[in-house]
């Protein structure tokens, strides 16, 4: 299965990248944009999807400062 895991900074942790992107948008003419976060997406082929949480916690995500979300297969758009 082709899995996708989103790793975001935990709520409450300063995300200067997200803030910088958010601040840059009005200057380019885009208003009404908020709560921007820059997150990491890891894509992988995995034989046993049940191991994904362990994979996330062992390596992909530092659970002190990040949280992860395994994207459900039916949410995935067809590859371009």
């Amino acid at each position: 299965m082709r899995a996708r895991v989103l790793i975001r900074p935990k709520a409450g942790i300063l995300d200067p990248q997200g803030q910088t992107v958010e601040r840059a948008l009005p200057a380019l003419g885009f208003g009404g944009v908020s709560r921007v976060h820059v997150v990491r997406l890891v894509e992988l082929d995995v034989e046993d999807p049940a191991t994904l949480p362990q994979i996330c916690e062992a390596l992909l995500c530092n659970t002190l400062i990040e949280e992860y979300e395994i994207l459900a297969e039916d949410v995935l758009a067809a590859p371009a």
Partner: protein
Amino acid sequence: MKFGVIRFPGSCDEVDAQLAAARVAGDAELLWHADRDLHGADAVIVPGGFSYGDYLRAGAIARFAPVMESVAAFAAEGGPVLGICNGFQVLCEAGLLPGALLGNTGLRFLCRQVELEVETADTPFTRACQEGERLSIPAKHMTGRYWAPEATLDELEANRQVLLRYAPGENPNGSARDIAGVSNAAGNVFGLMPHPEHAVEELTGSTDGLKIFQSLRDHCDERLAV
């Protein structure tokens, strides 16, 4: 007394750390990441650099190196471990130190001499310093913002685990409470973002960093004498 300095693929300041350690102890050996043997090191240094390219997260992959198992065991027995910059990141990822290092708030790599204040002096790493003393040491990193949950930070301060702080106005990366370096609860593992190994010779800058190496050497000499 002998220092051991770990070398991971991508380590950059390991030779600098080895040179600095050799100034105070005469014997400082590089320890290959894939070798579980610490070769009799009395103190272990996890050096600066970009182990594994900082891929995924700084230190996230190096922490799984075979040598790190031995370092964990060494630390569990009270052996002194010093993590510098990337080494600090590795120790946090490995759970040997509390907290984590995040990207600098300025979002840029910053190489700059900073003034540190010694908060706690009676430790294996700062015993050659005085409390309140200022040390001028260079910092050079992209991911140096120290972070831990508020409750943890309160604990660290209560337990005197904050050994070094950036002097007022000197915080280069947004670290919580201006924390530059922390130790574990047992006090034998210490990580700091600034690079003491680059402050050991007048020719190339200040010599304040020598005190950290001297502290470790004195601590180990004492341990060995027992």
